């Protein structure tokens, strides 16, 4: 430091040492304390702050003694529905072969009948010849093929949004999209009847979930007002909290639609499944580019799954072509939905749940027969009755213990454009007949 002595004062080491001797006592005492603290710190051992446990060793022993291990595989009764499934041979198209018996398909979500469409099949075959079957890599690692980009482009145009992003698995689409945006400490307002994929996405987000009653906008408003008062109490917290509303367009579990115009006028993100109407695999999200782009590095299902097999992307593009070329199929579907919805009214013991134009509607028991198990058994009898007479139906299935609000058991009736009016009427009268013979 003596080199920097050109400041006007002579900085000589002797003077400095002299200053040290003349230093005030409080200063030296403080320095002494600091040095002692350093020495103590250097020799202190590493430890975890949360390691403290309030349990005494004896209490721990008792807890260990009390613990009873559960069997890895619990005993399951032979007639458990999961062990007795129907076997389908051949494609689940308009006609479906269930347990060797040909039926008209009222169970697969093949709304537009594109599953067996010749154009879609040949597009997929051409793609198969060109690209092979799989992609063997996620989108970020040589898994992006030209068909993926084309499909994203086409989906964005079809949905009239800036950008779309495709996922390889329908369930993972919304289940990845939600946690990509909503993190710990954020708040998500969500409809009680939201489907299982949404529930899993919410769970993965670790956010605070606020459920409002199904399609009840006043209940949502109440929650939003509650949140507003809370925000006013703590504006600093409110400033760093993101808020989301998650609703379904057409509720899978109830068959009714969300009153979107009442709810909001600007939607940030739309997520949809390509496994039903498009008769392909996967799903997509669409919206404004700056929102969608975020998922390309943060959507877990997008980053860490092998990309969609090119032949399925090509099939989806062809399905979009068909939808764009004949928009009338949507009107046809709607008319058919309304027809069977009308025909199914007034069955004693069964209620039709869902909008009249919903292509998937639920038939629920008017009154429960004691327990869920009994109800499921009765509905199964109705379904079997119909399958034996050539109409394939199915019950809506849930993971009973995992669902937030387990919907009551129901038979799901799926309408597709391929079903003729006679078939729709036949199905309705058969269901009526089955309900009469089973329930009375």
């Amino acid at each position: 430091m003596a080199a920097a002595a050109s400041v006007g004062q002579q900085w000589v080491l002797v003077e400095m040492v002299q200053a040290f001797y003349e230093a005030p006592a409080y200063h030296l005492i403080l320095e002494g304390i600091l040095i002692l603290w350093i020495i103590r710190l250097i020799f202190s051992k590493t430890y975890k702050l949360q390691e403290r446990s309030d349990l005494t060793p004896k209490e721990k022993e008792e807890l260990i003694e009390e613990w009873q291990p559960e069997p890895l595989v619990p005993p399951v009764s032979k007639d458990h529905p999961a062990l007795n499934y129907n076997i389908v041979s051949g494609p689940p198209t308009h006609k479906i072969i269930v347990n060797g018996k040909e039926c008209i398909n009222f169970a697969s979500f093949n709304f537009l009948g594109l599953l067996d469409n010749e154009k879609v099949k040949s597009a997929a075959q051409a793609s198969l010849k060109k690209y092979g079957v799989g992609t063997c890599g996620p989108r970020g690692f040589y898994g992006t093929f030209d068909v993926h980009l084309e499909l994203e482009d086409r989906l964005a145009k079809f949905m009239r949004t800036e950008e779309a992003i495709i996922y390889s698995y329908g369930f993972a689409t919304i289940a990845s999209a939600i946690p990509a945006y909503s993190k710990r400490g954020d708040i998500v307002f969500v409809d009680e009847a939201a489907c299982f994929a949404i529930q899993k996405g919410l769970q993965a987000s670790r956010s605070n979930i606020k459920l409002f009653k199904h399609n009840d906008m006043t209940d949502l408003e109440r929650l939003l007002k509650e949140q507003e008062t809370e925000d006013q109490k703590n504006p600093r917290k409110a400033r760093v909290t993101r808020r989301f509303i998650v609703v379904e367009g057409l509720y899978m579990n109830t068959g009714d639609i969300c009153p979107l115009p009442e709810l909001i006028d600007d939607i940030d993100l739309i997520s949809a499944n390509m496994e039903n109407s498009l008769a392909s695999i996967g799903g997509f999200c669409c919206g404004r580019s700056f929102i969608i782009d975020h998922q390309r590095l943060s959507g877990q299902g997008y980053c860490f799954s092998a990309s969609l097999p090119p032949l399925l992307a090509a099939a989806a593009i062809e399905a979009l072509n068909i939808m764009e070329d004949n928009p009338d199929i949507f009107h046809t579907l709607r008319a058919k939905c309304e027809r069977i919805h009308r025909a199914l009214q007034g069955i004693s013991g069964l209620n039709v749940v869902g909008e009249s134009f919903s292509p998937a509607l639920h038939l629920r028991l008017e009154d429960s027969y004691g327990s869920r198990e009994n109800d499921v058994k009765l509905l199964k009898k109705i379904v079997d009755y119909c399958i034996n007479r050539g109409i394939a139906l199915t019950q809506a299935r849930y993971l009973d213990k995992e669902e937030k609000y387990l919907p009551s058991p129901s038979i799901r009736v799926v309408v597709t454009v391929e079903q003729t009016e006679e078939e729709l009427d036949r199905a309705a009268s058969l269901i009526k007949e089955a309900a009469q013979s089973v329930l009375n």
Partner: protein
Amino acid sequence: MNVGVAHSEVNPNTRVMSSRGIWLAYVISVAVLHVVLLSIPFFSIPVVWTLTNVIHNLVMYLLLHTVKGTPFETPDQGKDRLLTHWEQIDYGMQCTSSRKFLSISPVVLYLLTSFYTKYDPAHFMINTASLLSVLLPKLPQFHGVRVFGINKY
């Protein structure tokens, strides 16, 4: 840190202070700051030392004890959103070598400053206040504590 390999750290903030060469880089940057201040003609030696100390502590306070969360997205859904960098170091383990180093360095700088300011009372006040602002938040007792809710969210 982990150049050329994929690291498996959920939150790289926890390990950054243990990466190779970071202590040296830290010492060199403080030295560079000091030399830069020395080269400014109007400042006397005591002023330069006090300035070095105050600037060092201010930067340390901002980076370690004010800024919360991570500059990158972590796969744990933002577990550390409300934790300062100091609290994230070594997953909150206390008395680890990085923590010891970062606690001792401002004290050493303070002792040097005291010596070069000839134990002047005015410099003493400024330097001690500045030292306490970075030492107190480092104490295990203040881990996760936000006095009067300052900087809580």
